[in-house]
């Protein structure tokens, strides 16, 4: 009989092998998935994982998709360390894109170095305003942040759709729901000439470094950790839960807002309804896969960026449905959560005993 028993001490090894194990299991499952659909599994996996990043253009595309994931994930890490389950990065992202677009559309004829910063700041502020709603609902009315942020995501999406079909619609756009193209001065400069990779990736890496400094060195990061691990100790120490909640949510809104602003001022250059393929949701997977650690989320954002372009590649090359991306992302999160159980628990082979009664009590407090 197999027994799942609580480990006396959480496994540090398992904490870091769990993501790798989850990836391996995802690949194996993917293999059989291709087989079941009558496709060549080796070919399919190659198109999904290898082909997209086999040249410079491909790598640049990877960086392009990494940027919004990394920015959103950095902000979410700040929230999740404090056990504030902010699911609203998607909404912050959309509002950031919308806010930046509103300003950029007013400035289509402007030129000057100040245009781009102004547009980006507008996106950041819009993202923060959106996250502030959820923060206020939590600190003043004690609303569950999971519910409020999810609902705010839908409101943000519909607000964006309304705007792009209405006030911000390009009057000469042949009725397409999209804004005018932004001025050159409002666009992010490219990082590698000849590719679409833009400055947004640098923002993402900077955000990850900032998260590292926050939690490795700063007192406010320590306070966030304490609130996440032990609310009573935080109250005892006088670390204001309200203040920290506001801080985490505003950081989350700011980074996701910047991600949204970077998307409209980067590869797209205008506001369109499908500005996000779900970056804000995928960023949640990035944070957990990356163990809420700066280096981890950089690696995880690269992997999940790959699922976006790998999915596109499969659509083109093998005529697979678009849902493949979501399927692989879902599998990854599913396996990760499963494997994470083994951080706290271990399997043990147990001899069947007569009169076997499940033992609930654990020997957690051993005298030493």
């Amino acid at each position, binding site marked *: 009989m197999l027994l799942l028993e609580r480990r006396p001490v959480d496994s540090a090894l398992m904490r870091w092998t769990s993501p790798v194990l989850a990836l391996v299991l995802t690949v194996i499952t993917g293999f059989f998935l291709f087989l079941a659909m009558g496709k060549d599994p080796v070919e399919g996996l190659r198109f999904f994982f290898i082909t997209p990043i086999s040249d410079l253009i491909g790598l640049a595309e990877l960086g392009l998709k990494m940027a919004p994931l990394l920015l959103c994930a950095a902000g979410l890490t700040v929230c999740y360390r404090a056990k504030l389950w902010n699911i609203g990065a998607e909404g912050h992202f959309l509002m950031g894109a919308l806010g930046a677009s509103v300003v950029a559309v007013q400035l289509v004829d402007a030129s000057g170095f100040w245009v781009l910063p102004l547009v980006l700041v507008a996106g950041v502020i819009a993202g923060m305003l959106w996250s502030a709603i959820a923060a206020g609902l939590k600190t003043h009315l004690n609303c569950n942040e999971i519910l409020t942020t999810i609902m705010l995501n839908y409101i943000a999406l519909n607000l964006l759709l309304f705007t792009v079909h209405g006030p911000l619609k390009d009057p000469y756009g042949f009725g397409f729901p999209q804004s005018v193209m932004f001025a050159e001065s409002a666009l992010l400069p490219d990082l590698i000439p000849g590719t679409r990779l833009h400055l947004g990736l640098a923002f993402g890496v900077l955000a990850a470094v900032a998260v590292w400094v926050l939690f490795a*060195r*700063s*007192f*406010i990061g*320590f306070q966030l*950790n*304490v609130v996440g*691990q*032990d609310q*009573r*100790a935080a*109250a*005892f*120490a*006088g*670390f*204001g839960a309200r203040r920290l909640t506001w801080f985490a949510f505003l950081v989350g809104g700011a980074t996701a807002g910047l991600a949204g602003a970077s998307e409209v001022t980067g590869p797209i250059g205008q506001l369109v309804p499908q500005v996000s393929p779900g970056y804000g949701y995928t960023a949640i997977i990035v944070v957990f896969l990356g163990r809420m650690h700066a280096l981890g989320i950089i690696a995880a954002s690269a992997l999940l960026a790959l699922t976006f372009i790998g999915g596109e590649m499969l659509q083109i090359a093998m005529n697979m449905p678009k849902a493949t991306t979501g399927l692989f992302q879902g599998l990854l999160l599913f396996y990760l959560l499963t494997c994470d159980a083994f951080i706290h628990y271990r399997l043990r082979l147990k001899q069947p*005993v007569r*009169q*076997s*009664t*499940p*033992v*609930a*009590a*654990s*020997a957690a*407090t*051993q*005298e*030493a």
Partner: protein
Amino acid sequence: MTAALRLKLENIVKEYPGCRANDGIDLTVEAGEIHALLGENGAGKSTLMKVIYGVVQPDAGTMTWNGHPVRVTSPAQAREMGIGMVFQHFSLFETLTVAENIALGLPPEEARNRGELDRRIREVSERYGMALDPRRYVSTLSVGERQRVEIVRCLIQESTLLILDEPTSVLTPQEVADLFATLRQLAKEGCSILFISHKLEEVRALCHNATVLRQGRVSGDCKPAEVSAAEIARLMVGDDTPISTRVAAAEAGDVLLEVRDLSWQSGDPFGTSLKHINLDLHQGEIVGIAGVAGNGQDELLKALSGEIRSARDSLSFGGVGIGALKPDQRRRLGVAIVPEERLGRGAVPGMTLAENALLTASSQRLVERGMIRFGKVREFSREVIRQFGVRCTGEDSTAASLSGGNLQKYIIGREALQNPKLLVASHPTWGVDVGSAVAIHEALVRLRDEGASILLISEDLDELFQLCGRIGAICNGRLSPLAPTADLTIEQLGEWMAGGFDNGEATHAAA
């Protein structure tokens, strides 16, 4: 008393990685016997109890139950055999009611009949003087009330061997006397009782026989009534630990803390509200607050720490109104707090000792411009460990890996090294071994001699009488007058603990 053997343990060995918790222990308990199991924290008592109760399996040794060799593989089996256990750290579900918690341990047919179960809980709890409302949620109960649930649960299961792990630590003298009467009555009816305690006087008053453990071995057996407490203590701690005696009183200085008409309304209908509390605390004195668990001690501590805030002038600290200040602001003025719960309030279990130093000592130049100075943090932490003799592998040990006594020494040390003007300590030696308790008492007295005011909230009357210059009691959120320890009798204090004092409205029964 019959001579029938209820329980016999022979040569029990249990090894954990890095430590031999039980090293060849023999123990016999007769039917109707009250048997004491004594020893410091880490002596192996808990492990031995877990072996008997089936929580862990011994590596070697035999257990005989009513004359038959047995192997207990689970607590459920132990309960079926008639072994009941009251853990020191309660195993209750906070989100369930008293009756639901008790029902969990009963056979389905008994558990389903709620009306009958409620009646039995009321009957048993009242018979033994432990008033309990079966429909209250455990989360709203104080520590002392939770223990009542545990004891009543065993009594309802009709156990023939009751294991009690430090059962008296949260009871008043009157309640202890009631509990002892209950236990004696149970023993007369043939029930065996295994009584684990640090309180030697209680063991001497109650138990027929005692087995003393030290470092996983039996260091002696005795009849506690026939030997002195000092002799038993020597068996427990060896010959090198000084046994503490009453501390000489000190000359009190100026008033440091004035509490004026402090009231606070609890949001929880079962919680305790603070009512018109008045208190003066002088420099260089230790004032004790006695009381039964759940009578407002925790609320009073929170009101002083800043976790509960009140009107600005209800608390005056060195002439400054601090009632509206937050915990960290008060701490910077020199207020230090040692809460009742070590893990999960006084310290974060999963964090290292160094990180836990940062929890309350950040104002000791450990943080500069928002950045943590880890060198200083570790230095501070090492200093606490060194000065207070905290046994651990270093400042990188997690708080959860320390024994209760050692963690408590660390927490007290962390506060003491910040040179506080006021230290409020709640149950500082609860569940702490004798050696650590002595060290903690010495630390409190040293702080007092350096001029600090100390407010000691405790249910251990020996401790209060030993350390304090003045003592009062809290009951139902009201504070009794304070009397100099020399003029106070234990009977008078017991009366105060039950609410028998007159300031304002005075018709309150003990909760």
